[in-house]
């Protein structure tokens, strides 16, 4: 097998940027949360690739932590979404602008 490490990282970068683009484009908050998941996952890919490149287990350990974080984030994020939906009656983030300075 002869896959350069850069290709793996390239994949991570592309996934990350797609996630970012989605985050910026979409106004539905569920989609935004999905895009965040994509980005987190992309970061995880980068860790695993790097870990594989140097033959270290650290990359995988980090991925597990990211996974834990993503799980926590999703649980809170989804609760927030439910709350937002109850308060505003929609999932459009442009309606949730009460925190303007």
């Amino acid at each position, binding site marked *: 097998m002869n896959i350069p490490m850069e290709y793996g990282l390239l994949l991570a970068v592309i996934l990350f940027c797609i996630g970012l683009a989605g*985050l*910026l484009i979409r106004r539905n908050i569920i989609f*935004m949360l999905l895009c965040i998941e994509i980005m987190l996952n992309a970061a995880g890919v980068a860790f695993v690739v790097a870990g594989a490149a140097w033959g270290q287990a650290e990359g995988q350990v980090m991925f597990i932590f990211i996974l834990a974080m993503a799980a926590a984030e999703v649980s809170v994020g989804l609760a927030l979404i439910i709350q937002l939906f109850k308060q505003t009656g929609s999932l459009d*983030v*442009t309606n*949730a*602008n009460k*925190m*303007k*300075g």
Partner: protein
Amino acid sequence: MKELLWLIVTLPFAGALILAFGGRKFPHAVSAIIGVGSVSLSAILTLLVGFEFLGDTTPFLQVAWQWFDVYGLSPDIAFRLDTVSLIFIFIITFVGALIHLYSAEFMWKDEGFVRFFVFMNLFIGLMLILVLADNLLLLYLGWEGVGLCSYLLIGYWYKDPKNGYAARKAFIVTRIGDAALAVSFYILFMTFNTLNIQDILTAAPGTWSLGSGIAMATAFLLLGGAVGKSAQLPLQTWLPDAMAAPSPVSALLHAATMVTAGVYLIARTHVLFEIAPTAQHTVAIIGAATLIIAGMSALYQHDIKKVLAYSTISQIGYMFLALGLGAWSAALFHFMIHAFFKALLFLGAGAVISVMRDEHNMFKMGGLWKKLPIIFWTFLIASASLSALPLITAGYYSKDKIIWLAFASDKGSVGLWLAAIVGAFITALYTFRMVFLTFFGKPHAEPTHRPGWMITIPLMVLAFFSFAGGFIELPQNMGNLTLVSDFVEKTLPVATLSVLQPFTELIFQIISSIVAIGAVFLAYILFFNKPFPAAEPQRNAVQRFFFKGWDFDLLYDKVIVTPMIFLAMINKKDIIDQFYTGLACITRQLNALLSATQNGQLRWYAMVVAAGAIIILTIIFFP
């Protein structure tokens, strides 16, 4: 007996305290007994102490406790009795007791009867502290304290804002003098490391050379204090307004005792003035100028109490003149006699005013001599004394001594003598103008009642003293009785004379006698039984100028008061605070600017984060 000195001071305070706490629960009679009784007891004690003191006139010091002791300044609460303070406490308690008795009837129907006696008793106590104090700080305590009482009593009928303002004016104007006095304490302490009066007087001649700048400054500052309290030029304007007080107050504070505190102060610190001849000369000049200016104003008043007020200013001017001449005993003698007859005049005037339904205008009185005989005769005796009618009145002996010394003293001059003699002429003129307008002529109104015994007895007692008080000190060519001067000169130095011929003195006595009698005669021609309109007379510009007390009020108002109030008012909002408010405003603007980026749009924030990441990466890769 001397050991009871503290009791003389404490009794009035005790009276005030009892009245203040229990006053409204007592019936009027009890309050009156407490108020009058405490002061009368003081007066009796004073007589007892005084008789013992006459036997042995060495000064007597009674220390109550040490006030404080800081860095060398260790004043005591201590009373020092010597001949000068004895004269003063005698006048204060004795005249004070009489006036209290008078007030008991005069104020009977007033709703603040108790309050009145509280303030009056407080005043007596503080005035006693003033004259008995053995150090300047305690003297200052009494000095300010009597100022407070003066304020409270002038504003006694507080519902009329005019009275309140008169009271305020009196306090503020005298405080100007007090500030000067305070500054003199700084210098005295700096130099002598003490504020004990006797220590300073002993040390001063050895420390300061004659006429040195620092001595001069100190003397002038002391003079400033005296001028304020004694209503002399240029701080005399408060006294005529102070007539808003009830008449007994005018008699006690603004004629007999408090206003003479300045005289006491200068007499007490005489050594400092002797070291500073210019200052002492200024005292004489101020006295001379004041006596003429105030006399001229008195001539044009229609309010009987205002006449007496200006007359008081003028008579204290005589005392200042005497002080300036170094004639200490003459000044104190005139103070004593003046206390009797001026208190009497005010009390008489007060009685007249009260029976005439609070009418102050002399032109609306007239013909009262038959209806109020006791008041008339006592008032006449006092007026004669004030006019210094020769030989028979006490005022003659006291004033003539000053007029004579204005020429004969080594510090005297023709100018001062002229001023004094002109003043004497004016005094007699306005006094008898007042007598003729009030008691003679066509009656304009009927008195409502005759005053009772509590008013008439003090009048008669004081009349006796205004008449007989002069015979204890006679000029050398008329018996040469020198009881007062002997007594005073145990404490204060003797006046030095430049010319010493009895013959010259006789000439001057004749001149002043003629002047007084001539002035009475002139008043008789001008004012006796003349029909005057009852209304306030029309005045031309000159008359108004004199009527308004030479427009000093206007001057001060324009030059000092108005600019001060203007200054205070333009910056009411405090410009410094505005500065901070401005700072806060700018901050808030900046805040608005930055918080515009906080628009609450999640996508906008994400965009900014991404843009930030791009910028940072760009900076890293393409430095």
